[in-house]
Structure formats: structure tokens, C-alpha cells
């Protein structure tokens, strides 16, 4: 039993949403292990720091950081100074800095390890609310999508940027780059998914993007797109009450994850070996699906309102 405990302790599954709480779950039993309070606002996005010690929430005007190692119900750090909703947040690989994007049209870099805690060295402004940010695995290029339908590539080293407009009059709702850096995917509010193939650029040459594919993923808003860690699958979630898994590189439909009661599917996260996927939806449940069979294997009950954000930290089994 003791061994099991340590095993399951290594997995962190966090969900949050409109009920102003964050819940941590034991994945195999579906039991909620801990509830944290997020009093002032809904949760737009959740991220676990690379060192697994903190959980970060993007919310209205603030980014909060919670301590995962203690039993503190409340946030321990409050990053403030943004004027509207923070829509996305993330970290570089070694957890030294944090990036955030928000409806105020600004992407910010926060130096979270600096001694005086106030040095926040970079900012990037666009014309419309930023909906999503994705950090290229090379750690220096940020890709951002906004509500005007523009995708920006911002090089943090050279401070240069370029713009892409895949489809006029459509909001970019999410972006992702796969772990092997071969593809970038973006989804928009018309349910379409665009794929680019990426070409590596050495030291100061930017990554080159080549449009590769475009397909109708969903009938309504597509909300999230995520590549699996093994780069074999792409999951898209949508307002059409489904999540769909597409096989890479052909982007043919592999599984449609659907339940009658499931409403909007807001977020999704693959297990580290890409065999399972967690989803969060408006019917107050998070769910676990088997990627190969498309069967729902667990559900996580406890939220009082829509679950809009989900974060998973999974490790390779020893």
C-alpha cells in the first residue's frame, strides 16, 4: 500500500473552473485529495511549475501561485499589474521565467527567480486580446494567438517578430507545437484546425513555418489543441461537446471522445506515454479516456460548476 501511495503521489492532476476552487485528484480512484480556494475569480488556465512545487492559475487581473508541497488552501504569491483577464500562463523548461498573455493584448515575461521579485523584463503588445501562447521547445520563441486571428512569432533573444493570418475574421483560440518540433497546430472559433510544418533555425535564425494542412475539426468553436508527448496524436476540444483525437502526421480522426451529458469540453492533457487523456468539461466533471479504445475509464466528480482548466504532471514509471 505504501508503494502505491508514493506512486500516485507523483502524479498531479489539478482541475479548476467557474466554482472558484482548484481540486487535486487521485487519478485511479477518482477521489478528490485536496481543494484550494480561488476566491476572487474563475480560473482561465492552470499550469504546474517544472519543479512540481507550485501550481499557477491564470485568472482575472492576477496570476496566483499555490504551494503544492504544503496544505495551504490559499495562494502564496500574487502576480499583479495586468488589467484584464489573464488567459494563459506557462514556464520555460527550467522554470526560471514565466510567460503570460491576457485580454489586455499583452504578453509578459516574469523573471520568477530574481532576488528582488520585481524584475519582469519583457513585454510584447498586440492589437487584440491574446487568447493563447505556446513556447517553442527551443525556449526562445513564443507563438501567440489573438482574437483578431493573428499568430505572432516573437523571438525573445533578438526581440523580432513576424505575423501570420491563417484565416481572416476568425479568432485563434489555441496553439501547440509538438515535442519533436515538426508541427504547429492552431484551432479557431469556426472549428477549423491549421497545421504548419516547422523548420529548425540555428542560433539567431528564426524557425521557418510552412503551411501543411487544414481541416474541419469541429462544427462549433474549437477550444484547445494539444499534441501528445510522443507526437503521434493531436487532441482538439470543442464547444460541440466532444473532444477528438487525430493521428499525426495524416491528421485523420482516430477517436471521438463523447458522452451524452458532457457539455463544452474546455481542456485536455495527455499522460506522459500518450496512452490516456484527461478532459475537463462544463458538466462539472473531469474525465479520463483511453486513447486506443476511446472508452471513458474514470470520472472525477466534485466541482460545482463548469471545469474549464486542467493541469497534469505525469512521470515515466520506474
Amino acid at each position: 500500500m505504501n508503494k502505491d501511495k508514493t506512486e500516485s503521489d507523483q502524479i498531479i492532476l489539478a482541475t479548476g473552473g467557474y466554482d472558484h476552487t482548484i481540486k487535486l485528484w487521485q487519478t485511479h480512484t477518482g477521489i478528490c485529495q485536496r481543494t484550494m480556494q480561488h476566491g476572487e475569480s474563475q480560473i482561465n488556465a492552470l499550469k504546474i511549475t517544472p519543479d512540481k512545487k507550485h501550481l499557477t492559475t491564470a485568472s482575472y487581473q492576477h496570476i496566483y501561485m499555490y504551494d503544492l508541497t504544503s496544505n495551504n488552501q490559499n495562494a502564496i504569491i500574487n502576480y499583479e499589474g495586468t488589467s484584464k483577464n489573464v488567459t494563459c500562463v506557462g514556464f520555460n523548461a527550467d522554470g526560471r521565467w514565466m510567460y503570460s498573455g491576457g485580454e489586455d493584448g499583452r504578453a509578459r515575461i516574469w523573471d520568477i527567480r530574481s532576488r528582488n521579485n520585481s524584475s519582469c523584463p519583457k513585454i510584447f503588445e498586440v492589437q487584440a486580446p491574446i487568447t493563447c501562447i505556446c513556447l517553442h521547445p527551443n525556449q526562445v520563441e513564443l507563438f501567440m494567438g489573438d482574437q483578431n486571428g493573428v499568430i505572432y512569432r516573437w523571438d525573445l533573444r533578438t526581440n523580432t517578430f513576424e505575423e501570420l493570418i491563417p484565416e481572416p475574421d476568425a479568432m485563434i483560440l489555441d496553439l501547440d507545437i509538438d515535442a519533436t518540433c515538426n508541427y504547429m497546430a492552431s484551432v479557431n472559433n469556426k472549428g477549423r484546425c491549421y497545421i504548419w510544418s516547422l523548420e529548425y533555425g540555428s542560433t539567431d535564425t528564426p524557425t521557418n513555418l510552412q503551411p501543411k494542412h487544414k481541416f474541419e475539426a469541429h462544427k462549433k468553436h474549437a477550444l484547445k489543441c494539444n499534441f501528445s508527448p510522443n507526437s503521434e496524436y493531436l487532441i482538439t476540444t470543442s464547444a460541440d461537446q466532444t473532444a477528438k483525437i487525430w493521428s499525426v502526421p495524416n491528421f485523420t480522426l482516430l477517436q471521438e471522445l463523447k458522452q451524452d451529458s458532457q457539455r463544452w469540453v474546455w481542456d485536455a492533457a495527455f499522460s506522459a506515454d500518450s496512452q490516456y487523456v484527461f478532459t475537463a468539461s462544463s458538466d462539472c466533471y473531469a474525465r479520463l479516456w483511453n486513447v486506443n479504445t476511446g472508452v471513458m475509464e474514470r470520472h472525477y466528480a466534485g466541482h460545482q460548476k463548469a471545469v474549464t482548466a486542467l493541469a497534469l504532471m505525469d512521470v515515466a514509471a520506474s
Partner: protein
Amino acid sequence: MALYDNKYWLLSHIRNSFITTDDTGLCELVMMGDTKDIKKHILSQETYSEPEGSEDDEDELEPQSYDIETEFEFGRERSNTAVQLEKFENKKKLHRIKHIKWEMDKSLPENYFDDLFVKRDVRGIKVETKTSMVSEVIQKYTNLPVNPFIDYAKFDGSGQVNIPTRKYKIFLTMLPESLSNYPIGICCIASAKVEELIGLILLQLSLNHPDVPIKSTNHYGLYITEEDGEVDSDFPCLSAKECIAKFSFNCLGLVEHKDTRTVTFDNSVMIAGNSHENNLRKKAIRDSKLEEKRKLQNMKLIDVHNKAMEAPLYQSYRVYKMLNRVRGKVEIHLGISGEKIEIDPIQQKNSKFPNLSKQKAISHHMDTIAWCEITDVKNSKTCFKIVYSLTFGGSVPNTADNSFGSYSFSPVLQTSASFKHYEFETDNSTALDIVQKINSILELRSSSSRKEYIAAKERKNYKRKSFNLSKK
């Protein structure tokens, strides 16, 4: 005590006693000024101090008790503990949340960014192919029976911020005494029903005490309980379908019902346990379910049998007799026995039209009754009708309600010229009882009026069918 001959010390002692025992603080105000003088005098009394006791004396030669902190303020200073606590509290508040404001720092060294943003070579990144922890745990516990109370987690109110919740102390009477003496804390959302609160408690119980056998929620009741855990058996348990917000008791006891009406089993459902026993457990659960089904079926049969046996015994029901549309309905006693059916009016006291609703007693011999059935089921009411024959058996109903008698004999004759019917309305279970009872009696007697009614009905059906056919 040696110091008692030091008059200054004595003076100081008396002053201290005054100051510390006076809650108004006035003594302190009056006496505060000349502490210094006393101190000087005490310290000058070298002659009284003995060499070996000198160390102790130094401590005691303070002019004033440590309880008094001299500050020239009105009122007394609060105790040290309170001050300490407040400091601690403030410190905690400060440390509780760290605020970091977004600011552009222009004074950064030039190589700062080079250090912060280091480009990684992404060529030849290898993907992880090992089984992950999530897969391992999920596959390992595929056969783990799912905790049947897991969905009650929805009603857990702990940690909820913006919705009303209720906190309870729950005593679990089914646990061994050492554990059932102490309540567990349960926080439930205020909109939950009592049975959902029971489910939430059972979920907690199944997690904390996996060895305790747990039955389904309807085997348990929540009772009002004293703070010391004594269950108050004078009151019934909280009604399972009610919202918990209706009850204001915070201390409740969960009791397993030993009621005979709820079927109990020896091999009850086990929720969680060691994985190697899972298959055995699953079988046990399946078996107990089958047994439950069988027992329920048996009970149903016994029930039907009992009802048939009891049918000819006289029983009286209070129901509404439906009159015409204008006059609505009137409450009557419906007496049913193996021999006859009696309709006795109940005196209406507050009726606006005492004459209109006045009803006479009616009695029908059972042989004249032809049919009884439920006609309409509404939310809480059920309508049923009793069809009787005018010609059979010779016992013409002895009604004498001249003015409106014809109405009460139902102007609509759907079946045959020689049959009329009454319509009644009552709550669902009573209606079911009555109809079952009458039908059991009718089946036993199988009178000729019943036969004719059924025959007439069939003829009518046949006619309707043949009419439909010819139409085609």
C-alpha cells in the same frame, strides 16, 4: 521573608497590588509618578542585603511588578500574551501572500537576457516511450470496484467559496465504540438533500474505514444527536428527500436501520479492499444482488397473496367523489366489504351551498358491481371509477337525492344502457389499494353483471375494429 523589613519594598508591593487589582486603571494614573524615587531608595538599602542571597535580591529589587508596564497612557497595557499573539498574527498576514507587481526594470545588466533566454538545439529530440505513471496506476487498478458513493463527492462543500454550505458533526454509530465516540466533520453544499448528505458521509466512511461493511444509502438514517454523541431516538430520522438546509441541527448521528421493511443482507456490499480479493468481492456483490432480486420477488408475491386474502374484510376509505363539473367533488366514506360497497357522505361544515353538496348514503350489493379501474393518474391524485349495473341483483341504489340525484349518477354512459359508474379521486396509494381490493373481490365472486359488462365491452371493441376495417 527577609525583604519584609524593607519599608520601600513594602511600599512598592502595596502600590503594585493596588495597581494590578484595580480594573478602572485610576490607581495607576494617580500613583504612577514616583516610581523612580522608590527605585532609588530600594537600591540604596545595601545594609539589608545578605551576601549569599544577593543574586536573588537583584531580581526582586525592582520597584514594580513585571505585570505592570509603565507607559504614560490611559488605561492598562494588555498582557504580554495578547501583544505577542497580535504580532504573530500580523506576521502571518504579511507572509500569507506575496504580491509581485509587474514593472519594467530598466537597470538590468546587458548580459541579463543572454543568460535568461538560451536557445536549445531541438534537433534529434527523442520522445518518451516508457509507460507513464498514470497508465501504470490505471491499468493496475482496472478491476478495482468503483466506490459506489464516489458520485456523492459532488455534494462536498469543503473549500467552496461562493456557494452556501453547511457544516456537520456526524457520529458514526456503526463504528466500534472507540471511534464512534468522536464525530467526523462533514461540509456539505446547502442545496443537497438528506440522502445525498448520507451518501457523502458514507463516502468519507468508506475512505477512512475500508473494513467497515457499508450498505446503500437507504439503509441509513440521520438522527438528531447530542454533542456527546447520544442519538436522540425520540425523533424520527430526517426525511431522506428533504433539503438539508431545512434542518438546523449541526450534530447528527448516522444510524443503520434495523427496520424489517428494508431488506437487510448478511453478505453486504464491500467497497474497497486488497486487490487480490477483488474477484471474490465482485462475486459476493453479484450474489447478493441476485438474492436481493429474488427476495424482492418473493415479497411481492406474498404481498399480492395477502391482499387477496384480506380483500373481503370490511374496510373504510376517505375519498372524494367526483360530481359534475359545476359542483366539483365531495368528500365521502367509501366502505368496501365482500358483500357490498357503501358510499357515506361526510357532513360538510363550511360549504357555501349546504343543500347542493348534500349527499345521501348509497349502498350497492357486490353482485351489482361490474368493474373497477384507475382512469387517470395525476401528480399526487389518482382517479378511479366503479361501474355498477342497474338491473342485476335487484338492489336498486337507495338514493333519494331528488334535486341532483341524476347528476351524481353520472350523465355519461359510455358502456351500456344498463351500466352506470361513479368516479372517485384520492391519493395514489389509496386508489391503488381500493382498486386492487375491489378487483380481488370481483374475481372471487365473478358475478353475472361483471360477465355481462366484460362481454359488452368486448362487443364494443369488436365493433370498433370492424368499423375501422370496413373504412379501410
